[in-house]
């Protein structure tokens, strides 16, 4: 009998990997921002370019500082840091202080980098954290919608229908829609006041479709968010002509004017909901794990946004709703945990 040959070295599966790598996902998301950035540059020109440049540089700086602190050899997170900066610029009006944006982006990128490298996750979306930092650093600038008519967003006008005095209500909204609000199609092309990159609904939708196509974004978050927002806007009450709450506004017509449909359309595209649902919902770390969780997250985001607007939140209802849903992610994951097959 001859000697036994070497024991075969059985390596662990899988022997091939699908990819794409995480860095590729970050770069794809950054590439998805391109059409929205292009539109922002078109409408806001040099000011937008300045803000994007400052935010990008601050993001890279914060990321580098986080990398330096961590001292572990990790892969580059530059694409993620740039995404944080660019998204922050998009959700804020172009009049926002560049210094505030720079500081907020650097802090958010730094925290994101440290948390991800050390703990593997973070709790709230870094862009929302950066937005809150801007509120602290320069509280007046993002709230220009309260008093400065030149930068009043369509959604700010719509919100007044909910909190208007009894003599206003939907009749006030009708007058707004007929005489003050920009035409709804202007919210699709971006020819309205608002966030630097949040006004052009069409560009955001195109970017979202592309991100879904390249499997960087689950369709559940934007679809359920927009669906829930539409449903909430169609059902939740507004102030009637006599000051009473008027339920099911989608079925209401004031002097022949379809008030419910106006509310619904401006809720969807007149504020930052589209941007929040598409780009901030694409962040995997601060969203639930599975598809059912994403659907629940989207419903919470959409309905929460409309609810907060109905309660008269003057600015950033969708960002507050996103913050709440980020906080609820562990609960959503627990609720939507699947049952193992055969148990």
């Amino acid at each position: 009998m001859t000697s036994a040959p070497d024991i075969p070295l059985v390596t662990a599966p899988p022997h091939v990997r699908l990819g794409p790598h995480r860095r590729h996902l970050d770069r794809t998301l950054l590439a998805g921002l391109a059409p929205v950035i292009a539109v922002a540059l078109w409408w806001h020109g040099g000011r937008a370019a300045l803000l994007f440049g400052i935010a990008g540089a601050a993001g890279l700086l914060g990321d580098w500082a986080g990398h330096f602190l961590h001292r572990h050899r990790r892969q580059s997170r530059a694409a993620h840091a740039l995404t944080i900066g660019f998204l922050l610029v998009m959700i804020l009006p172009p009049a926002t202080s560049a210094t505030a944006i720079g500081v907020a982006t650097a802090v958010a990128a730094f925290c994101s980098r440290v948390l991800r490298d050390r703990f593997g996750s973070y709790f709230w979306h870094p862009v929302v954290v950066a937005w809150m930092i801007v509120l602290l650093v320069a509280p007046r600038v993002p709230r220009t919608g309260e008093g400065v008519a030149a930068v009043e967003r369509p959604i700010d006008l719509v919100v007044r229908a909910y909190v208007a005095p009894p003599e206003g209500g939907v009749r006030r909204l009708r007058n707004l829609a007929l005489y003050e609000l920009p035409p709804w199609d202007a919210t699709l092309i971006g020819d309205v006041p608002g966030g630097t990159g949040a006004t052009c609904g069409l560009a955001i939708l195109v970017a979202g479709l592309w991100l879904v196509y390249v499997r960087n974004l689950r369709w559940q978050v934007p679809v359920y968010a927009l669906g829930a927002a539409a449903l909430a806007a169609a059902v939740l009450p507004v102030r009637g002509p006599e000051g009473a709450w008027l339920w099911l506004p989608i079925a209401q017509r004031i002097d022949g004017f379809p008030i419910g449909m106006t509310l619904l359309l401006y809720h969807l595209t007149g504020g930052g909901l589209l941007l929040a649902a598409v780009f901030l919902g694409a962040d995997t770390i601060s969203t639930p794990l599975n598809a059912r969780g994403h659907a629940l997250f989207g419903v919470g985001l959409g309905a929460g946004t409309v609810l907060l607007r109905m309660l008269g939140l003057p600015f950033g209802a969708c960002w507050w709703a996103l913050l709440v849903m980020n906080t609820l992610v562990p609960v959503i994951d627990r609720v939507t945990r699947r049952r193992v097959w055969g148990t």
Partner: protein
Amino acid sequence: MQWLRPFKPLRGGYFLHDESLDAGHRDFRPLPGGPPRVLHVPLANGPETPADLLVHEGAEVTAGQLIARSASGVGVHAALSGVVRAQSQVATPYGEHVPATTIEVAADAEDRPGELFEGQLDVPPANVEAFVQRMRVAGANAGDLEGFAAGAAPKALIVCGLDSSPPLTSRTQMLFRYGAIVIETASLIHRLFGFYRTYLAVERGHATLVRLCTRRSRGTPVRVADLVNRYPQADPRMLVRTILGRALRPGQHPRDAGVVVVDVGDIVDFARALRGEAVTHRLVSIAGHGVREPGNYRVPIGTPVADVLRAVGAGGTRQVVFDCLISGPAVTNLATVVTQRTTAILPLWPADPPNPSPCIRCGLCQDVCPVELDPLAFYQWRGRRSVERLHPQACLACGLCDYVCPTELPLMSRVRSGDDVSA
């Protein structure tokens, strides 16, 4: 329209697709360049007691000749004519070392196993015992069927004609070539063992094959189950779930539920055994990196993998994966031989070692898991709670969670280690 498509697709899973690793749909052929120079024929098919050699060293043997027989009557046959040389130990792809006899193949040996024809079976076995006896004599692997011959209550027979991953096309090709014989043999087994139902699982994507098998199965107890072949649909537990709609408990084997799942290659071996022929060859897919002639081949059992690779033009390969692209065993010892269980040989260039980074909670591992496990929970498990509540025994070890993970985390090994802890 549900009645038109009674078999729901697998929940989870993934459509594997890689054109560079495709074996194509060519008919089975012998290895190019003639038969191998030497065979190391395994005398055992796993950890069981090896067969006793019936020929002495230096004896001349002919193709198909019985050269060894185990205590239970399982025969081992020479695939090619030649001279018996030393007895040795050979490595199998499954990490085992089994005794083997070396046959130096004659220079004029011809690699032409007998062809199978429909309706050739003149004297079918009268009962289960006779069937099992014929299988043993011919050296066919009756596997779970032998357990049912011992008196267990059989319920359903599933013949798996699905290829497990994209480079493999051998099962589909077998159905194209031997479909009628497979259905004939499955019908015979159905009658002998008294199965209530018998299914032939065929890939839905091959419409021609589905039509062909459906037509051939008319008037027989065999029902064609056209399934969406999303990996790991070919796994026996997945077949039971999809075809019978029955959820097996974690760790439960189909045979515990009275279901026998047989590979279509084994059915072809049964057909050969029923015709009194010895099982000496395997029908395998060969594809992968550096293979000049990918395709389906008829390879003698006991052929060293190095000889197979040399014949198909992949002589420089350092690592070979067997049977499944994702989760098959990988070996670097090219002295490993083709055994009766081999269904595919995939030479792959060694992949870069994984470079794991923190989880980004993309949820892909959950999406693709066919048994709806939460691999991330295993990865994050720190021993605070019992791991059993995560049901690690349910894992099929299909490797899809690792395959799709963009951060290259070793998820499957964590799930498997959870299984070890709970055991």
